[in-house]
């Protein structure tokens, strides 16, 4: 698969200018020009990466099956036109306020013009793997806060779980309503150099970013309507309905019409727009901790008409700040008494308190074993190979070659604290070495995984950039539903592997193509025909038929224009933003062996 040592011949295809001038857009290799090859001279540095749009250079640089239409359509536009549309994308997010906060400053989330495409067969295995992972983690959390069978059966050492900073003794023995702890999971995936999807990390606390999935689709539909028309893309706009149904299904027993609220830390949170968007699209109240009050083990919300009961809280506040009675006493974001109300069975907290232990990166290394143990199945999605720094043999092996691996803190998020060996300075390596020696439980190491690349428009030209994928799974207790697609994050810097938005990452609209056998209800529907004046004239006034015939040609044109407009205005979601907990990672596969 790899063309080690040879310059990429399909490099020219990344430059739209060349694509537009070339006549045979189907064959990227023919479009190469010396100038462009010079621009991509350094491209060899990322040669081991799997490119999702183009087959490897050795195979002729052909466009992969799912991308042919996107390639032709975008290639047939003039470079100025593509730039104009890319500008439109950046402008529309500013106007709609689709932003995320960094240090109190609102910034629009960069959205790239080239979509990322996943074919239906690949997606069904991803879907299967995600659902499997969520089921296993549910069983695991149930077990560690309950009987602890996995410890007695020797699947995972008890100290690994109890030493996790997110293991929460307060909820031991608490079974949540409906038996669900992971109402929403965002599991980060990467594609390795072979194109295989691997799990990079689990997020079952408060994964964010789903709002971008919806706003990206809406924005890109406006920017590239003709490209959408060529594809059957599975829709993403039903996410809020699935989430609401799952939350309502997990309401405390005996409540026939539960009240669901979304709980946000407030407007200064980086994901505030996502919270507002979800609340608006689910038709729920968006509350802050100060809006809630707990009395006699029940949770109520302060309204202008007095206190009203709340049954399900979809909280986007960290455990630590959720309830000052049990966690940080100085928290102003939470509501005193929430955990007690949950224990009394009067309120559902989604996601459940204490889930963080499943996100711990040391626990992550045991997840394939947990899947085998709880479900008696083989994992569908493999992990990225990982060394446990808490293990003496692993630690000694890694400390010898820190400059070749990626070192991560086990409870880090947002790409913080990660040290990429080959890119780090001597001082950085020494610092992290000291930290590992001091607190081995806090660190893991992984080989540098070369993330897959997708063409991305930077400064008016197309270049390869690394991406990851965060799909979202919703669990209502009667099965796990996976949103088709998810958030594709792009590391905008050349050769960069950290995709988090807080570290300069952008995003792409992610298209999951519908299986050719699926019914039209499962795909983005084509625009519905509208009744025209001609129809009504013909039926209501038979004598006006001659006029109708005269105008029918005009009406047809008009009807098509209406259809076109409808298509352009198609998606119904708007705005929002997300903070990205979660760590995007890695580089240069094959340098390091498995643990």
């Amino acid at each position, binding site marked *: 698969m790899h063309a080690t040592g040879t310059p990429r011949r399909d490099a020219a295809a990344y430059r739209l200018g060349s694509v537009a001038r070339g006549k045979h857009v189907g064959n990227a290799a023919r479009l190469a020009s010396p100038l462009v090859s010079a621009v991509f001279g350094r491209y060899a540095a990322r040669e081991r990466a799997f490119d999702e749009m183009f087959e490897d250079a050795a195979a002729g640089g052909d466009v992969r099956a799912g991308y042919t239409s996107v390639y032709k359509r975008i290639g047939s536009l003039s470079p100025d036109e593509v730039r104009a549309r890319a500008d439109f994308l950046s402008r529309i997010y*500013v*106007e*709609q*306020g689709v932003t995320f906060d960094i240090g109190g400053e609102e910034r629009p989330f960069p959205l790239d013009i080239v979509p990322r495409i996943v074919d239906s067969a690949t997606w069904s295995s991803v879907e299967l793997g995600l659902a499997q992972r969520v089921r296993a983690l549910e069983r695991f959390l149930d077990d560690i806060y309950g009987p602890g069978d996995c410890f007695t059966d020797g699947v995972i050492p008890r100290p690994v779980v109890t030493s996790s900073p997110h293991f929460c003794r307060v909820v031991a023995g608490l079974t949540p309503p409906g038996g669900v702890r992971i109402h929403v999971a965002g599991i980060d995936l990467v594609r390795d150099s072979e194109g295989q999807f691997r799990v990079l990390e689990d997020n079952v606390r408060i994964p964010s970013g789903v709002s971008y999935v919806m706003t990206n689709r809406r924005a890109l539909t406006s920017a590239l309507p003709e490209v959408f028309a060529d594809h059957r893309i599975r829709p993403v706009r039903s996410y809020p309905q699935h989430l609401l149904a799952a939350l309502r299904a997990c309401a405390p027993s005996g409540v026939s019409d539960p009240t669901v609220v*979304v709980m946000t830390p407030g*407007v200064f949170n980086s994901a*505030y*727009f996502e919270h*507002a*968007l979800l*609340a*608006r699209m689910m038709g*729920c*109240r*968006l*509350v*802050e*901790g*100060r*809006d809630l*009050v707990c009395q006699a083990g029940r949770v109520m*919300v*302060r*309204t*202008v*008409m007095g206190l009203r009961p709340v049954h399900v809280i979809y909280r986007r506040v960290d455990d630590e700040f959720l309830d*000052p*009675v*049990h*966690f*940080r*006493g*100085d*928290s*102003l974001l939470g509501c*005193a008494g929430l955990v007690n109300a949950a224990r009394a069975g009067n309120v559902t907290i989604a996601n459940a308190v204490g889930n963080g232990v499943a996100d711990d990166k040391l626990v992550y290394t045991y997840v394939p074993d947990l899947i085998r143990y709880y479900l008696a199945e083989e994992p569908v999605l493999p992990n990225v190979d990982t060394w446990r720094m808490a293990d003496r043999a692993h630690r000694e092996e890694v400390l010898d070659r820190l400059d070749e691996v990626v070192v991560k803190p086990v409870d880090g998020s947002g790409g913080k604290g990660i040290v990429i060996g080959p890119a780090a300075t001597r001082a950085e390596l020494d610092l992290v070495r000291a930290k590992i020696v001091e607190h081995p439980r806090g660190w893991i190491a992984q080989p540098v995984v070369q993330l897959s690349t997708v063409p991305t428009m930077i400064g008016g030209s197309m270049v390869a950039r690394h991406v990851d994928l965060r799909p979202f799974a919703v669990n209502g207790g009667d099965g796990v539903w996976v949103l088709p697609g998810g958030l594709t994050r792009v590391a905008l810097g050349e050769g960069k592997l950290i995709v988090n938005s807080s570290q300069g990452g952008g995003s792409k609209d992610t298209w999951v193509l519908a299986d050719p056998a699926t019914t039209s209800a499962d795909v983005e529907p084509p625009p519905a025909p509208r009744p025209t004046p001609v129809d009504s004239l013909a039926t209501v006034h038979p004598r006006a038929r001659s006029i109708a015939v005269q105008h029918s040609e005009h009406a047809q044109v008009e009807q098509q224009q209406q259809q076109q407009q409808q298509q352009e205005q198609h998606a119904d979601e*708007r*705005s929002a933003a997300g903070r990205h907990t979660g760590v995007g990672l890695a580089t240069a596969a094959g340098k390091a062996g498995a643990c």
Partner: protein
Amino acid sequence: MLSRIAESLYWIGRYLERAEDTARLLDVQLHLAVEDPVVDELAAGRLLLGVMGVEPTGPVTDASIMQLLCHDPQSPSSIVAAITGARESARRSRETVSTDMWEGINTTWYAVQQGELARVRPATAFRWVRERCAIITATADGTMSHDQGWSFLVLGRSVERIDMTARLVAAAAASSSPTSWSTALRACGAHHAFVRSHHDQDSHREAAEFLLLDRPFPRSIVHTLDTAIEALESLEPPERRAATENEATRLLGRARAELEYRMSGDILMDLPERMSDLQATCGLANVAISHRFFEGAVAAEWHGGAL
């Protein structure tokens, strides 16, 4: 409706009205300075700042007035501060404010952040502010449910409008300029309506009566008091036998009665004092509304520390 959200909507109403009225006022003021050869610009400027409750720190010039009332984000009476306030309030209630209305407010705020007001001629800037406010208000009217949230929006707008009109009337009454009443009419956007209904009776008394008591004109004080009281009534439980429990309704109702059922006599008498009483009433009503509807938004604090 959450108390916190109700408060945000109330303040969106107030801030938008403040931005619009300030733009009207400045437009007329700056026009006047050029148009009228006898007007004492310095005195007029001082009067304007006084009406708006701003203490000038340096010499009063057109530039300093523009800075204090239009461009300075730190000055609480400036248009920029009002638009920023409206946008912050809308951001805090995004799941309640309709998407269209949010985009209207957000694009306005964004343009202001980008320096739109400073880039164009002042007259164009003021017209732009008036138009943006009109667009947002109309979008809200057309896309928000006319429920409790809407009532809070209307209530905020009305309270602000009463306050601003009272300030304008007080300024007109205090001014020695012969054109002061026509200036006040223009600043309220009322000149055309006044001329149409009063034809040639262009006296001070008629103008004052129009701004205070004209029922059909939407910016007259009586009309606005009516709107505010109506909004308050719609927020009360529907069935009630005795008089209102709500202090704000009582305050505004009493103010309306004072205006409408005043013994016949010279309407111009004591006008500055009466207008400053009306402003005080607006302040009290604001406190009463906060107390009645928004106090729930005050955070409960936990003093126990983690158990």
